[in-house]
């Protein structure tokens, strides 16, 4: 048994870190977050050159064919850099859904251009109930057309096509389709733009039934938790650096146990989240029977930990932590958005409870 990264995994993580540090430094994040889409075509083509847009998808569709653990590592590094724009929505979310449910022909049509970096895409899932349980979806297609609203859709304004989850199946909708209206929602996280998408008799192509979706969303959920781990690590690094250099009462504030012990807790929370995320990645890759629970454990723990780590990081920075200039709040904002996306900690604890407490009803509850 070996719960450490292999040489090639270390290499991937290391090169991703260098790549993001070079191509997506804090100044670039801040520039992009002030734009409407947080998208940069030049950055996108560099992500494509690295193979990141096709990281976990089969070579047949132009992907790189790496595993879920590798995806976790890439997302961790993307999270550390606070990578803005539609990478998560296009590659992790839309890509995973297509990979999980689409036919070969549809994969060629929709997944391959994602791998090649030619298109942006997203998934429209939750509705005004903001309920992340697939069973709560009400939208239905009538004669191949969709009507209704989807909320909290990431990066829809820059998407070339949307994958829409309805009660009666999974649909692809072209972003220029008739009766489609995309309006921004003004969320806390400025680096990932959320939208309301309204459909009125909008033509949609049904590509699959809903079964198999939960695996795609498990992958996306774990990847989001991985991104949170990267954000926590960066928040910890910035904070520890500050605690070493900022002096009060003639001493670095990191010498005070009231500060030092909070840093220790940030480290514990970050490392524990990382363990949970890596395990979830491995369980997904191995199709282990506990994969869904492992994903819930990771998302539940990382969602809470990212908020706590952010709280501590801001507090330790004192007045500086409350300024716009300091980067900690940017991670804190992302953490809040990611905390609720794909179910917050309370949602996932209930999912875990339904497995460990009412195991007799698991089969009925697996969505």
């Amino acid at each position, binding site marked *: 048994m070996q719960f*450490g990264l292999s040489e090639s995994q270390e290499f991937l993580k290391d090169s991703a870190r260098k790549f993001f540090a070079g191509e997506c430094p804090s100044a670039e994040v801040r520039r992009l977050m002030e734009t409407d889409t947080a998208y940069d075509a030049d950055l996108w083509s560099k992500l494509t050159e690295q193979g990141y847009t096709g990281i976990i998808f089969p070579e047949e569709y132009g992907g790189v064919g790496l595993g879920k653990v590798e995806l976790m590592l890439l997302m961790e590094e993307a999270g550390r850099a606070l990578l803005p724009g539609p990478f998560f929505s296009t590659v992790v979310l839309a890509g995973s859904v297509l990979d999980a449910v689409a036919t070969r022909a549809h994969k060629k049509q929709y997944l391959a251009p994602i791998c090649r970096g030619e298109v942006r895409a997203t998934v429209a899932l939750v509705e005004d109930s903001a309920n992340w349980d697939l069973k709560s979806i009400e939208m239905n297609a009538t004669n191949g057309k969709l009507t209704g609203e989807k909320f909290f859709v990431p990066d829809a304004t820059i998407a070339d096509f949307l994958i829409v989850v309805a009660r009666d199946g999974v649909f692809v909708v072209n972003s220029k389709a008739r009766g489609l209206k995309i309006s921004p929602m003004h969320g806390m996280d400025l680096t990932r733009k959320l939208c309301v998408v309204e459909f009125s008799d909008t033509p949609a192509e049904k590509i699959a039934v809903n079964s198999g979706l939960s695996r795609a969303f498990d992958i996306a959920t774990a990847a989001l938790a991985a991104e949170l781990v990267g954000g926590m690590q960066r928040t910890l690094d910035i904070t520890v650096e500050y605690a070493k250099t900022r002096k009060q009462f003639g001493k670095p504030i990191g010498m005070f146990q009231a500060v030092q012990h909070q840093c220790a807790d940030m480290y514990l929370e970050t490392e524990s989240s990382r363990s949970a995320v890596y*395990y979830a990645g491995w369980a997904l890759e191995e199709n282990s029977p506990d994969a869904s629970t492992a994903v819930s454990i990771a998302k539940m723990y990382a969602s809470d930990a990212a908020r706590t780590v952010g709280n501590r990081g801001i507090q330790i920075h004192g007045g500086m932590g409350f300024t716009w200039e300091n980067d900690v709040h940017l991670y804190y904002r992302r953490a809040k958005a990611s905390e609720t996306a794909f179910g917050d900690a309370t949602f996932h604890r209930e999912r875990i409870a339904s497995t460990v407490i009412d195991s007799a009803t698991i089969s009925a509850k697996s969505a």
Partner: protein
Amino acid sequence: MDLNLTAEELAFRDELRSWLASHVPKDWDAWREKPIEESFPYLRSWQRKLQEGRWAAVSWPKEYGGRSATLMQQAIFWEEMARVEAPPMANSLGLGLIGPTIIACGTEAQKKRYIPKILSAEEIWCQGFSEPNAGSDLAGLQTEARLDGDHYIVNGQKVWTSYGWVGDWCELVVRTDATAAKHKGLTVLLVDMKSSGVEVHPLRQMTGESEFNELFFRDVRVPAENILGKVNDGWNVAMSTLMYERGSYGARLHLIFKRYITRLIELARTTDRNGRPAAKDPLIRQKLAQCSAEIEIMRFNQMRAFSRITATGVPGPEGSIQKIFWSELNQRLQQIAQEILGSYGQLLGGDPHAIDKGLWSYAYLRTRGNTIEAGTSEVQRNIIGHFVLGLPRSY
């Protein structure tokens, strides 16, 4: 990353499993509730049986009677022992902490003299580290040893000594140079507990029992050849012992905690709270789920740490995460148990209405000690702050 057991690990596990299947005592349940003074001979003979199968000290090098087991195999060992609810071994400090320290720091003569009897449980070992005025600040200890010819004369007091009442030998940290800086004047002595001037008193703890002892040393004569390591190098010897304390032993905690929570979930299903089973109460469900998840995360953290130690060869200060994690988790777990059991949670073992013979009231009190023993949570956070994160020393 590959969490499947390797062929060697599987072989190790299977050999152990089949050995345990035919050797693990079936009557431990009847014995475990008796006072340890009564069950101790039973634990000694269990350890002897393990040693006959060469399972008493799997981590030890083969030439000393172990199996040179990898860290992962050691973890498997403790997991399997917990799985079959095997009794503990009588000489657990000798096997887990002191034996390895003697193997690492002792002379050939010392190894020959002490190691076989540690393995056979013929000689039980205890540890004389903490003192009334030296807990977290261990290096501030005051028990002194003065050289007098070829003997040391030891005077002082130790506390929180496990197995003191049954100990034949003690790994004792003493001050041999009062003029040196506090870490530099310490020496480790191997002390015969039957020496004249050694007194052992029970230390009654808040649970009402006495797991630990106080040791008093009055003009105790210890042969100079009983120094372990070098004179005034006792700090390094003691630290190498404490490093073993945070080793693979933690692997069994996962199963122990899992057993707790499984039982707790059972109780939650059958205990009525506000007119419905506690297991249907959304708050209780949230807490049980959180706890179950954290028990898994504790295991993931541990597996990652084992892999890191295997790769780097040394247990790092990251072990402090495990200590904080399991001890605080155990306290949260017991708090949830109390919430589920309500007024019944307080009942002690002797009460006819007590749930699980008072297990939960006992565990609730006992877990308060978890964040204190083996390095307080505060000390662990200092270790992380200074040694892992590189923050300036706070003390």
